[in-house]
């Protein structure tokens, strides 16, 4: 039978040398049921309980954050635990953490695109969702962190009567430009990439309003060969632009620290170290989201074990690089002969905040090592847990970077410890709420699996794949 043949073909390995691996798309997926399955997630009138629970919880956390922000604006940044010398603490740790998570998403969508890793087709939209939600959170913290947030726009060049403009030697201004460019590029890439799927949504909409909304968003996409050609070309160009951008954005974030002369920050290893950590944290977050959603929305046929396995391998690789950096940190600081640098390394491991250091080592570095075992890579529950540990561990790392370096720098007389306040915690957990709110909103309203790209993974789409009659 023809249908059987097709299914057998779907199960065939994509390339030679991948014997024994799970397929990128499970058998039984056709154009028809693929489109139906994905578009149904936003279009179905019935809202799944899982989504309601997650979205509801996230909204509650978001409300907590809104209240925390109101208090923050009312009283001042003093409601946070920051002090002199620890002038940056929770909010900046949160900021870096969220940027990391966003960057990990971008890696999947752009870098793997550039390298023609077609397995990422099924999860790249989801990863971009993580990117956008992450940027939303990340963008918030530097603003909330400002003493006078109402004049944040002074960090941007614009014509004014003061004749005073930003100071372009400051990494913070680089950051402003970097994050802005990154956010805009991510949104444009995400949207441009989504237009064909928005057309699918439009064409599947049965009511007037969804038709109008998706119709406008789809901009009249018709799948003409000209459309596709330009679409593909634009996709490659954007991926090519985003790839260096992703690296530089996180490099610039690392410059916020590396340019400063604070011991433990002032280091040339910071850019690769940050980027690597970002990939680890971001892929972990994508993994968590992918595992949760494939289970609850029955997407196991599209997000297969193969994806989990690949994601886990990326996590493992980056964590090994991170291990290397941490193993060599004491050496480089000793070799530098700088007493302040040496003390900082000592202080991280044995000072008052050693617990953050060891929590990170245990979770962020130790956690991924469990992925050497293939069962941990393909078992969704275990992988979810490990990814969760890594995400927590990476936050600990950022926190550790703040409090150990700033708290004990050059002048012992100025040393001080830091204690987070309820405000700090509300903002951290609230931002998780914001992330999930945005993410689940996108999930419920837009095609969060790239339908047209998954179509290309189906053997039907290969020349001769759909020989009919």
């Amino acid at each position, binding site marked *: 039978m023809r249908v059987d043949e097709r299914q057998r073909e779907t199960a065939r390995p994509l390339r030679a040398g991948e014997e024994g691996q799970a397929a990128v798309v499970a058998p039984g997926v056709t154009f028809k049921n693929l489109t139906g399955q994905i578009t149904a997630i936003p279009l179905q009138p019935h809202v799944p309980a899982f989504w309601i629970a997650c979205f509801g919880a996230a909204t509650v956390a978001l409300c907590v954050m809104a209240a925390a922000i109101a208090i923050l*604006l*009312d*009283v*001042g*940044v*003093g*409601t946070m*635990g*920051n*002090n*002199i*010398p*620890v*002038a*940056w603490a929770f909010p900046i740790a949160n900021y870096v953490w969220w940027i990391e998570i966003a960057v990990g998403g971008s890696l999947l969508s752009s870098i793997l695109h550039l390298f023609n890793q077609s397995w990422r087709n099924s999860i790249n939209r989801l990863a971009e969702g993580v990117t956008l939600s992450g940027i939303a959170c990340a963008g918030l913290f*530097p603003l909330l*962190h*400002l*003493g*006078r*947030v*109402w*004049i*944040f726009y*002074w*960090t941007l060049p614009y014509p004014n009567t003061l004749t*005073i*403009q*930003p*100071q372009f*030697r*400051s*990494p*913070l*201004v680089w950051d*402003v430009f970097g994050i802005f460019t990154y956010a805009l590029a991510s949104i444009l890439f995400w949207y441009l990439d989504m237009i064909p799927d928005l057309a699918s949504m439009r064409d599947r909409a049965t009511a007037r309003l969804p038709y109008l909304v998706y119709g406008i968003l789809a901009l009249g996409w018709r799948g003409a060969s000209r459309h596709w050609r330009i679409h593909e070309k634009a996709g490659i160009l954007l991926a090519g632009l985003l790839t260096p951008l992703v690296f530089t954005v996180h490099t610039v974030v690392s410059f*916020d620290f590396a*340019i*400063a*002369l*604070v011991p433990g920050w002032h280091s040339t290893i910071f850019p690769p170290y940050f980027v690597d950590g970002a990939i680890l944290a971001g892929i972990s977050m994508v993994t968590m989201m992918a595992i949760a959603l494939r289970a609850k929305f029955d997407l196991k046929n599209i997000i297969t074990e193969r994806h989990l396995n690949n994601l886990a391998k990326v996590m493992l690789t980056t964590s090994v690089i991170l291990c290397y950096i941490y193993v060599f940190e004491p050496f480089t600081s000793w070799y530098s002969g700088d*007493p*302040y640098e040496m*003390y900082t390394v000592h202080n991280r491991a044995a000072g008052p905040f050693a617990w953050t250091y060891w929590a990170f080592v245990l979770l962020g570095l130790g956690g991924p090592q469990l992925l050497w075992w293939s069962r941990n890579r393909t078992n969704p529950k275990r992988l979810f847990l490990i990814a969760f540990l890594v995400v927590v561990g990476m936050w600990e790392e950022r926190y550790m970077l703040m409090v150990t370096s*700033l708290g*004990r*720098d*050059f*002048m*012992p*007389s*100025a*040393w*001080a*410890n830091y*204690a987070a306040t309820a405000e700090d915690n509300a903002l951290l957990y609230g931002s998780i709420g914001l992330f999930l709110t945005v993410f689940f909103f996108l999930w419920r309203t837009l095609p969060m699996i790239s339908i047209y790209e998954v179509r290309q993974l189906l053997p039907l789409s290969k020349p001769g794949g759909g020989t009919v009659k």
Partner: protein
Amino acid sequence: MPPLITGSSPLVRIGEEDQLPDQATRRRFFELMGASTALITGAGCTRPPTEFLMPYVQPPEKTLPGVPKYYATAAVVNGLAQGVIAETHLGRPTKIEGNPRHPASLGATGVLSQASVLDLYDPDRSKVVIYREQASSWDAFISAFQQLLAPVRATHGRGLRLLTETVISPSTGAQIADVLAALPEARWHQYDPAGPHSARAGSLAAFGRYLNTYYRLDRARVILSLDSDFLACGPASTRYAHDFALRRRVRGSNTAMNRLYAVESHMTATGGKADHRAALRYSEFPQFAADLAAALGAGGAAPAGSKYAAWVGPLARDLDAHRGASAIIPGEHQSPSVHALCHALNTSLGNAGSTVAYTEPLEVRSEDQIASLRELVSDMESGAVSLLLILGGNPVYNAPADLDFAGALRRVPMSIKLGLHADETSRLTHWHLPETHFYEDWGDARAYDGTVTILQPLILPLYESHSPVEVLDLLLRAPNRTSREILRAYWRGHAASGGGAAPENDGEFESWWRKSVGDGLIAGSALPEVTPAQAKAPEVPHTDSTVRSGLELVFRPDPYIYDGRYANNAWLQELPKPISKLTWDNAVHMNPRTAARLHLENQQVVELKYGGRSVRGPVWISPGDADDTITVSLGYGRTDAGVIGNGAGFDVYCVRASDALWCVAGVEIATAGASHRLAATQTEKSMHDRPLVISKPVALYESDPDFVSRIRPEPLLDETLYPQWTYTGYNWGMAIDLTACVNCNACVIACQAENNIPVVGKAEVLSHRDMHWLRVDVYYTGNPDNPSALYAPIPCMHCEQAPCEEVCPVQATVHSSDGLNDMIYNRCVGTRYCSNNCPYKVRRFNWKLYADWYTEQLKMQKNPDVTVRSRGVMEKCTYCVQRIREAEIHSQDEDRYIRDGEIQTACQQACPTQAIRFGDMNNSANQVARLKREKLNYSMLAELNTRPHTTYLAELRNPNPALLEHS
């Protein structure tokens, strides 16, 4: 632009305001308003609210708006005067500077004088007459008082008692004498809880009479402090610190230095500075002094084997070698026998008349104040007192606990209290009368050497208040004389004792008066020296102090709050204590060994029990204290001090007995559960072997003058990738001589007063958010069991290659063309990146709205030349740029350059030891440029190549080689 006074009456009090930003609700409302207005204006509309100008109707003579005026007067600190020059803006005194002519100042100021201007504006000062807890009026009081006086007058004053603090003011003394003459049956008592009781008794024991002692340390080569914190505490400390530092100024090849030995029971600023320091229990001091006296042949027989031989031997030899050029200074709280022994030592060493000066007492009447108070209390209890007039002081709070002054006061049929605050005592008296602050009224006061200053008012009284002499005048005649009239009448009628007599002739008197008021002192009014006979050394019972066991509890006046009278001064509460760096609290100090033996930890609350009374307080482990010695400071635990002072610390007066004012032995200690967080501004006192504060023996400098550049090499000028910026005009810089810094903290409070630095409250200090632009770092050094201390004032370094500037995203901190690291508050968005990147951590951030924008009285203190910072902006030391710009404008108006020394930063001006020098580095003849050429000069953290404009002269010490061998 300096604002004119706006609004008609700035003196109306608007509800109970709180200095602490966390509490007051009205403040919170305004913060909210501020935030929302700011948010709205941030959207583009930047138009400020309309302001109004209120010119004078009749301009006062010689008053130009925008130009401050300076008046000479004195800050009366614990009864004694320090001559000051007060800066006033349109009639508001804003800043206190030292009076260079005055012997207790020489242009510098102490901490308490600097802070006195805030006392004037204290919103919690009493404002109305209170009768039985109801607001009343002076008229009501005066008529009631005349009625009360009728029977008293009839019995020649029987039943009338005056209770004052120690009276030193000549005119007040004369007024009291007049009252006692008119009412011979009346009695006058004096009581000062932290006064020189021991010194009086010691003088009596040594000389058979009361004498005032002071020191001329500029003549001393060897100084021994027996538990005296003479450099940082006490009425003459400013002068002592000045004279002390004068003989330690090593410049070029001049390496002559005096030598300071300190023996202490509790580590003080003086002890930390000493070339040699030893810790002794309070009870061991008489023995130590006796052994020393014996070794020097000043009396007593040398014990066979002195326990202190290792110290006494070299010390005695050193003192012996410097007869007439040494000084032995007993602590005010040491026992009378120690004082007497010191007199014996000083007289036998020939120091009397040279380094140690004796005069007749400063106070109008010297007496055993405890006996006097005891007599008063027993009379109050027996009903012999029918009318008690308390002029100043707060005996209900601070009288010895065994006397039960409060209980006795309740039995007095009619009691009247005059005071700045409606305090604990005012609560129990029938009447409370508001007293004028000494900046509001005429008066006179003596300095430590007897020099008299005529106090002139800088401002009209803020509230309906009167001075003690005006109240005393009510006892004499109808209330029609003002303080000024009384004062002038006194000086017309009396020749100042010890010289400085006022001329009789009218015209001469007027010019004498003008000159005396204008100079800030009456010329020649210092008390003449007397030459006492060789003092008698008291017999010290020979006890082996190792046998005495049990904990000793030592009471000391707080260095800033003193006996509690300054408890409501927020600047003083937040000023870190010299060594412990604690703010807003007192603590139970003990050394680490004692704490370990008692199994106590920092901040653990303990209960101290003695004589059936007990007190609870948190432990603070203080290295350098003597074993088994617990030191607590007086003045805390106030209940009616005001919103600042109430509830800060714990009250140790409740275990202080009249027979043991300063120390009790055998106190019991027990843990009392909870712990109490103490707010210290510096928690790490180890330097971690980093060459931050360099301190070496002078002998090293003599043999190797270039040692500093080896320890701390300066990067070469071309060791940079950046171009060389040149500063062609002025190039401001500062040099700080670490040898001279004695950690008195006057600079810190002067900076606070000059630069409108807010007070943040204990909770914020606990969060490490103190706002002082200038801090004095303290590091322990040497043997951990008996450490010494290093001090370094840390202002902004004004780095030429300032790391803070590079990272500011909005150009809110950039370099000025004259070498300043400018901080532009109004441009700051508050990223705090600059603070991260400041290796010296001298930047301060307004985490909340710390500045008080609403309390009318506190607004009046603000320096109009300095922006009051709002919430969310960074601030830091500016080198007092307002003074630089003012001098610049002034010199340009006169078409000349700024002269060396024309600009003094606030810290420099206050510094008693002239440790801080500021000026133009481009002119090599300037003092600061000369100091920077000294071989001791180094930059802190020079290896970062920040090229600080604030540099330090390494500290040199002068240890005794003989004693070094022993240790």
